């Protein structure tokens, strides 16, 4: 069992010794049961850290913000940042390290192991409780969830509430860490790409109908992009307004700027946006499922990104986010890469 006391103690020590400037972790939200990201700077605040099945967020997203903040400041505090990570989040950090976006020395990684379980899918919990308001959710000793709601405590098997991504997760403990609480016991996953295989079994027309139906809903709020730890580009190709418009950009230059994607949420434009995002995440997405969780229209974006993770593994034998020393997927090649689709 991952022990929150161990984590708090370590956080307290790091902050007291001034080893880190702050720690990004999980705290209790204002509704009393959901976890929210918190930033703690004082040793006394370490007690605010929590670890429970609602810690769904991938906090490595905040590392991009930290990097920008440092670049802006005149005299930045160069001490490392502490960050609490689950197995999936640690893979995101591995990818960021592979891309040399962040430096290992700038991080103190506080790992927590999900062990036999993972985090919950809130929709499943709502269905399970049939309208009752949850008050607290904890990990049980046997890999179940203990849900407290309406004066009673019920044990729910992990399978019932676990987020879909957690059921296909191959990293139930952090792959990179400076401190770890919980066991490092690998959990067998029968079909890590089961959901994708089900999609692939459909006919081409059925898949088209599925994606058309889903992406038609997209309102282009870009929540998926904002929440994604991999979407850290300073300028996004789909924002034609943000494409390097400076004070001396002439009107003519602006008019002639290539608009790759229109801003209007039409289906054709939505497809270009989501395809571009998927391909940019190819070999980088570690399936933290944040895009899907943040999506207000519940578009199953995981299915797009996970597909490329599967292809990376099958075509190129590339496992995303496990090995810091390997180069990123599309900035390397092998002489014997498959080319059977080429005439």
């Amino acid at each position, binding site marked *: 069992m991952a022990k929150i006391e161990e984590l708090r103690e370590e956080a307290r020590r790091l902050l007291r010794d001034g080893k880190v400037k702050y720690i990004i972790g999980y705290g209790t939200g204002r509704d009393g049961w959901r976890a929210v990201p918190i930033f703690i700077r004082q040793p006394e605040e370490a007690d605010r850290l929590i670890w429970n099945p609602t810690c769904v967020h991938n906090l490595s997203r905040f590392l991009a913000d930290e990097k920008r903040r440092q670049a802006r400041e005149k005299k930045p505090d160069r001490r490392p940042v502490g960050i609490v990570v689950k197995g999936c989040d640690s893979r995101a950090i591995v990818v960021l390290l592979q891309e040399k976006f962040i430096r290992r020395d700038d991080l103190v990684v506080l790992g927590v192991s999900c062990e036999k379980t993972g985090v919950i899918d809130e929709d499943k919990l709502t269905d399970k409780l049939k309208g009752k308001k949850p008050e607290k959710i904890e990990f049980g000793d046997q890999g179940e969830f203990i849900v407290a709601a309406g004066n009673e405590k019920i044990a729910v098997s992990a399978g019932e509430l676990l987020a879909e991504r957690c059921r296909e997760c191959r990293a139930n403990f952090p792959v990179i860490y400076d401190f770890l609480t919980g066991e490092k016991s690998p959990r067998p996953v029968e079909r890590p790409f089961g959901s994708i295989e089900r999609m692939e079994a459909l006919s081409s027309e059925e898949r088209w109908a599925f994606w058309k139906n889903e992406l038609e809903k997209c309102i282009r709020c870009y929540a998926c992009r904002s929440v994604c730890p991999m979407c850290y580009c300073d300028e996004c190709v789909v924002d034609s307004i943000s494409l390097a418009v400076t004070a001396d950009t002439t009107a003519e230059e602006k008019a002639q700027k290539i608009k790759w994607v229109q801003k209007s949420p039409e289906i054709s434009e939505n497809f270009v946006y989501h*395809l571009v995002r*998927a391909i940019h995440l190819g070999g980088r997405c570690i399936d933290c499922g944040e895009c899907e969780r943040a999506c207000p229209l519940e578009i199953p974006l995981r299915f797009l990104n996970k597909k490329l993770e599967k292809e990376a593994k099958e075509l190129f034998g590339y496992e995303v986010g496990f090995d810091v020393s390997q180069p990123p997927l*599309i900035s390397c090649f092998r*002489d014997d890469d498959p080319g059977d689709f080429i005439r």
Partner: protein
Amino acid sequence: MTEEFEPRIVAFLCKWCSSAGSDLAGVSRLEYPPNVVPIQVMCSGSISPLYIFSAFNKGADGVLVSGCHPGDCHYTKGNYYARRRLNLVKKLLEYIGLEPERFQMSWVSAAEGQKYTQVIKQFVEELKPLGPQTKLRRNG
């Protein structure tokens, strides 16, 4: 009488091999279908997946990417990068339900004018039964 559907193909040709190959087909007076809009790029490795999505978005019925044979790249390894990246693009387009025939890739050297015409002929033959590409096309 209805007119036969003529597909429009956007072909990204690398300057050093495929573009020269298409030139060779031209100067050799080889006949091939006029359905291609060739776009010369410096290297097949310089083709962003966005070019391909954008071509479909703007109404291409098929997209061809053609570069030097492996080992022949003017920049030594651009086509190897292209092979890896565009394989992913092809898989992704198939996955969302676009007909797999609509995106093709070929290696055509500067000496292979004949092969270039073959690639185009075959591509056009494959696209004709599919009809216009409307899935990713922008309306209006």
